[in-house]
């Protein structure tokens, strides 16, 4: 189908973008890679009054290491993340996740900032952002990831607020992301991410609730010296994942445990 009619403006810098968003009101939306927003508009599930395209705003596509933080511009695309030597050295898990997002077209267009802002519980980067305490830096300030993913598609972003960059801690130790899906180009039915950092394990889960989840009980079990298999049994603690056509809630809980165990074992191997 084709979208309902809307206005379109291309911003030259972020000041212009926020000013326009302020003027156009809450029905206006930022457009980045368009790979979440445009499909929704084509199905007319989203009918924004206007799009403010930030796709050509300069300076938002940089990747750099700044002390012990990896700073990634909001417009960095999946394909660029997957290829980046900097990311592969500083946070290889992010590069590995990026290489598995959607299909080639999606990876060529979609952006890190878009995934974070969209806050789809099936998005991959939010899991990593949450488990590693990333910071979401915007035109208005900065949000710690733990306060950012509030609910399904819900964040504290104001209508005129634009993400500039996301910063992650550098972490190059043992890691693994297992994305369980039916088709290679699909979203995760469940994703389990593990990263060793500061001597401990951080465990995250994709698509197991209304937001990305951290498997804290399992993390604690590992910290107490339990085996990986024992700890993974607690990966689904407190989860009430959704049931949908792909998987029942029970099956998702089961997958959270199985995949966490496998991810830990493979990361450690």
């Amino acid at each position, binding site marked *: *189908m*084709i979208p*309902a*009619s809307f206005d379109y403006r291309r911003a030259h810098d972020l000041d212009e973008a926020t000013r326009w968003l302020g003027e156009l009101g809450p029905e206006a939306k930022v457009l980045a890679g368009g790979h979440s927003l445009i499909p929704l508009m084509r*199905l*007319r599930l989203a009918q924004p009054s206007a799009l403010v395209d930030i796709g050509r705003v300069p300076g938002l596509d940089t990747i750099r290491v700044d002390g012990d933080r990896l700073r990634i511009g909001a417009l960095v695309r999946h394909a660029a993340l997957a290829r980046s030597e900097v990311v592969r050295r500083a946070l290889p898990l992010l590069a590995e996740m990026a290489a598995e997002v959607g299909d080639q077209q999606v990876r060529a267009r979609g952006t890190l900032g878009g995934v974070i802002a969209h806050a789809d519980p099936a998005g991959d980067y939010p899991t990593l952002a949450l488990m590693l305490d990333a910071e979401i830096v915007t035109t208005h300030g900065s949000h710690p990831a733990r306060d950012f993913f509030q609910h399904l598609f819900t964040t504290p972003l104001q209508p005129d607020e634009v993400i500039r960059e996301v910063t992650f801690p550098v972490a190059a130790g043992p890691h693994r992301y297992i994305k*369980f899906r*039916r*088709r*290679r*180009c699909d979203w995760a039915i469940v994703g389990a991410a593990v990263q060793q950092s500061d001597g401990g394990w951080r465990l995250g889960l994709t698509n197991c609730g209304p937001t990305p989840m951290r498997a804290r009980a399992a993390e604690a079990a590992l910290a107490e010296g339990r085996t990986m298999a024992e700890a993974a049994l607690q990966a689904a603690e407190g989860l009430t994942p959704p049931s949908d*056509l*792909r*998987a*029942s809630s029970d*099956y998702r809980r*089961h*997958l959270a445990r*199985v995949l966490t165990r496998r991810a830990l074992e493979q990361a450690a191997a």
Partner: protein
Amino acid sequence: MAVTQLIGARIQRREDPRLVTGHGRFTDDRSPRGCCVLQVVRSPHPHARIRSIDTARAAAHPDVLRVLTAADFRSVLHGAMPVTPSFVAEKRQVPERFPIATEEVVYQGEPVAVVVARDRAAAVDAAEWVVVDYEPLPAVVDPIAALDPAGPRAHAGAPDNVCWDVTYTGGDVAGAFADAELVVHGRIVQQRLAPTPIEGRVVVAEHDPYDERMTIWLGSQNPHFIRLFVSQALQMAETQVRVVSRDVGGGFGSKISPYPEDYLVPAAAKLVGRPVKWVETRTEAMAGTTHGRGQVFEADVAVRRDGTLLGMRLTQTLDVGAYCGTFGAFQAVAVYMAPGAYRWRGVEGRTIGVLTNRVPTDPYRGAGRPEGTHLVERMVDLVARELGMDQAEVRRRNFVTAFPFTNPFGFVYDSGNYHGSLDLALAAVDYPSLRRRQAEGRAAGRYLGIGLSTYVEICGFGPSAPTAGATGGIALVEGAQVRVFPTGSVAVYVGTHAHGQGHDTTFAQIVADTLGVPMEQVELHHGDTDEGTGFGYGTYGSRSLSVGGMAVRGASLLVREKARRLAAHLLEAAEADVLVERGRFAVRGSPASSRSFQEVALAAYGANLPSGMEQGLEAVHYFDPANFVWPFGAHVCVVEVDPDTGQVTIERYVAVDDCGTVINPMIVEGQVQGGIAQGIAQALFEEVVYDPDSGQLRTGTLLDYLVPTMSELPVPECSRQVTPSPTNELGVKGVGEAGTIAASVAVINAICDALQPLGIRHVDMPASPDRLWQQLQEVRRP
């Protein structure tokens, strides 16, 4: 026959350069001048009464030309949409279907109004402004529950939901069960599938009131049938209606029957006085294009302890949908094919067609034969399991071995060598060592499964006598016209329709060999009802080669024979002494005196003809086969199931298919591979899901309806055995559906084989990880 050079050769499809470089001519590429856009307003309810339709706001849109409802269409469209007898002549009730709902909507997606606008954006916007006041009615969403006399009716006021209920008996069923040492029961669900061709449906129509001509461009597998049906509804002569179906991006059976839009678009063109185009969206396709399968089988098989199959009783409950599909009852062929490749004393099959509030089902690749095959191949595996026998052994013990063979329902299998194809397939996988690996794996907690499918199928529709009744009058033969121009180039007009099958290549191979001309000299035409023979019968049921190819050959032979007689005259030789060899007509014993095909073609338009011969070099031939054709084969699927996640990985897929003589091995492999892909898709991925409570379609996009891609599919190892068909002189059988017919059950048998030690007896489709895990949970529970 001429010295064979091209028949049997591995020739690349010559239509591909055009298609893969974006130079195809699809319906949407056609926009007559002044063309406007039609958008259909569809029912969001599975079942409701229409209280009123308010079109005022939509009609006031500045770019809208007309908003039309059933009342408008009734002035130009007459009669109900057609329903053929197909395999069930004795229907109890056939709800009358007009292309657009009048008072009651009976499935989600049924048209209730259309908007005709200057452009697409306006049409889509205005369609949202049409206000329909519905009174929702209880919906029938499950075909088994639909049989409850106390439940709701799919059509208000109907006596029940039964469209047909017929039992066919072949052989001594009672005796077979009386002698049984064991009776094995099975229940098999065939989920609904969406055919999902890459190109959705598109209809463009232009009405010329001065010439009184209607031209309809659409993607159809059988444009002549569309012309027949639509011209009748428009009350125009067939000569006044031209249907053009050029390149079509896949059909898989879903582009056989006429659709509401095939009527509404030309009718709107007439009412609005401008050319009109409608392009289906994927969501419309999921909801409104016919679905396939949608059947539940219950079966009992009577056997002896030594593995001898004695008898079968089965019931097919078929979800017809809200209206009977034009060829929907064809799917009852599952009953006739339930005997499979085996000898039985008797088989009894009951088929019940059930009306529900869902889009109609109709043929989808294989249409009834995958279901029949799945049933019998599952039942044979269950027999093997209960008797503790090897699956291959039970098959071997019961295979039909002498041909022609008459199955319990009177169908005559023309030729076969079932042991041969199974032996080849098992040798290809090294069956004994696979079984050893399986045993070793089990000891280590790994679950390898081996699935067999030894199918036989009926295709090549079909002999005139049985098929004329099935279509309601038109016998499924095929016509072809071959025209040779003075320079010797050859134009061939066929009544079949290629939409992925590669006829442009295979038919040219047949013509070139028969006439002895290079393939490049032969041009194929199909899909335009203004050209060629008076009727074309179309492409479905793997009929194009064994019926259409024979028509092409027959017309070519008529041309060749006339050319030979003319050559004899030119060479001043006796007709009997003139031979045709490598495109030359030569006198027996004196090869030096000869004429080329070109020289004879030119002479055919000259003055020096034998007495009584007319000018010209062209012929029409209709071919009526004496029987159906009966391809068969053996497929072996090897899977590993992850017992922790329920994930199935196909390790190997080996297919040995026997479709008789092969014209082009590359095309046969392509057909088999694509067919297997669709069978695997059914086994593991695809399922149309309607909400069990609300009746709403939940798989409305390709995000929810899982069509697998290349990444998820194995590359099947295809090989062949050749047992020529005695039914036609080419010795060919169809191969368009064989892969799909065989594959779903090969995969499911492999999964059941893998999970047998864990206590799983049967698995339904799609065998998704979630479903397998749930089943494993149930058997693990103490």
